[in-house]
């Protein structure tokens, strides 16, 4: 198993996540897809860590996870507020910035 496979897998996961962000309407689904993208990046870091035989990549992955946690917490709080104010979870309805 070489690093190339890992990277391809990671790229695939990333693009799937990106497509998901654009395609899905529910805000929580979008968050899920964002988590997917973050994980794809984690995989890239891990692959390179193994390839270059350094632990720095893994430390970075650790920090990414922490940030993902914090971001999930705050993001979900925002989703709750959106639902409370607009009675909807569809991100299309949050269009007050429309011209």
């Amino acid at each position, binding site marked *: 198993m070489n690093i190339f496979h890992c990277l391809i897998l990671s790229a695939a996961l990333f693009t799937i996540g*990106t497509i998901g*962000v*654009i395609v899905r309407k529910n805000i929580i689904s979008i968050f899920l897809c964002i988590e997917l993208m973050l994980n794809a990046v984690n995989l890239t870091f891990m692959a390179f860590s193994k390839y270059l035989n350094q632990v720095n990549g893994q430390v970075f992955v650790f920090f990414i996870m922490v940030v993902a946690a914090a971001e999930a917490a705050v993001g979900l709080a925002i989703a709750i507020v959106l639902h409370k104010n607009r009675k909807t979870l569809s991100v299309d309805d*949050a*269009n007050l*910035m429309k011209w």
Partner: protein
Amino acid sequence: MMDYLWLIPLLPLMGSALNGIFGKRFPKPLISAIACGSVGASFIIAVAAVTRLLALPPVERHVIDTMFTWIASGDFVAKAEFLLDPLSAVMLLVVTGVGFLIHVYSIGYMHAEDGYYRFFAYLNLFMFSMLVLVLSANFLLMFVGWEGVGLCSYLLIGYYFDRRTAADAGKKAFIVNRIGDVGFILGILLIFATFRSLDFTAIFSNISGDPSRFPVETGFGILTAVGILLFVGATGKSAQIPLYVWLPDAMEGPTPVSALIHAATMVTAGVYMVVRCSAIFSRSPITLGVVAFIGVSTALMAATIGLVQTDIKRVLAYSTVSQLGYMFFAAGVGAFSAGIFHLVTHAFFKALLFLGAGSVIHAIGGEQDLMRMGGLRKFTPTTHATMLIAALAISGIPPFAGFFSKDEILWSAWVGGHPIVWIVGLATAGLTSFYMFRLIFLAFYGSERFPENARQHPHESPPSMTMPLIALGALSIVGGFVGVSAWMRLGPNQFEKFLEPSLEFTRTIQSANPAPGQEFIFAVISVCVASLGIYLAYRLYVVNPAASDNLARRMHAPYSLLLHKYYVDEVYDAAIVKPVVVGSREFLWRGIDVDVIDGSVNGAATMVQNAGSLLKNIQNGLVRSYATWILAGAVLILLYITLSQ
């Protein structure tokens, strides 16, 4: 006195400024005093200056008074310089003298007007401009005066500015003048290009002193071009064909204005200019031919129109156009001094005729239609007597002033080898006496046709109006004696001799040597023709007034043509005015200004607006589309990296 030439124009200018700025608060006597006093003072200084001029020997009668250097740019120098020589002396005396008399007349004529101070301010301003014109020593200053008199003409014609016809007439005068001025300006530019100077003395001595460079031109040379361009300006200012149409309309102005500006002084500026530039004109037979042709045809045409007009001032206006034609064709046959002589005598009797007409109008309470006058002889004796004198003078009956000048012109035409011009001139003289006496008979003789308004019977004018009439009448009687022709064996023509120094650079037109006594015969012929005109007028308007109406009815078509002034105004309107107006409105205004200029400015704004509308669709508030745009940008960068590998 020679150093104080500049006072002559300056005094009326100061009078104009005083009256114009403060006149609203001045009492009427003060306004009159300032206005007439300044012109009177100018007249006195002018007389003194001319006296001093006469004390000099003839060859030295050429005095220059430099005020200041106006423009000094490279090799172009234009000074504010006044020239006093016999020609300008003659014009000076006429302008200040007749001008003074008319100012005095206006005191009485305009006394009931609200804008009394305005009238005198404009009139004084006119005097200033006219004096600058006749006294100037170079083309540039003359042009300043030229434009100034045009401006004052506009102001004074439109004096009754609340009357639509008066305002229109003022505009017409100014615009038609301007058309002539284009030619004048082009002529001045051409002169400068050829001579590198605009000074009269420098240019004319240059021409006469360099016959190789400025020969008598057989074809179309520089002098011909200059002459024709200058003459175009003269046709505008002096109301010749084709730019005469403003003068009849100018009768909308007050009668003193018609007398001063449109009879005695402003319209003669063109003649003065042609004679002043005689050095140029005399060396170009083509130009002289043009001048003579236009002059004599204008004289004939205007006289025919004047035969049937019913407004007293219109008759006099066409008469002025006709007499100006005489002056021009005099210049055209080379008789420059005769033209100036006729200018002087014409100033006397035409001013008198206009002032007299004003007196008549004043007498019957504002009526101007000849058909509604009649039998005024017993009500206005002084006016009648003086107008009769003027009519005899203009008809060319000896010993009144007009006989000598008109005879001199006709004789010069014959002797110069232009028999057709002579015949036309003679016929016009007959027409002149006819229509002038028609005017006299219709106004003063016959049955009383004027409306009896409740106010009062017709009355004679006050002394302030009749004194100038008497003065001008006297001048019309004796004024001709300064230019008694040589054939009368009373000595040489004094007037011609006096003007010689001014015409020193003019080439003398060769004329056939007449047989002695021939002139006498020609003089008798002209007097007979004039008397015939008077007799016919007498028959048609005094003896048998109905005969004139019958004649008009039987010759209906020609009569109508003359009454409508050959439809010239209508033709101009259709051919020139309407296309210009329509062109301006449709093409220049709607087409260019609104569509192109406004369109491009508005179009730029609309374009920005449209671009904004297009771009605003990006801001649709949709988070997902924002994400898509971000992704698109990232993909573009990725594409770039991929392709560069």
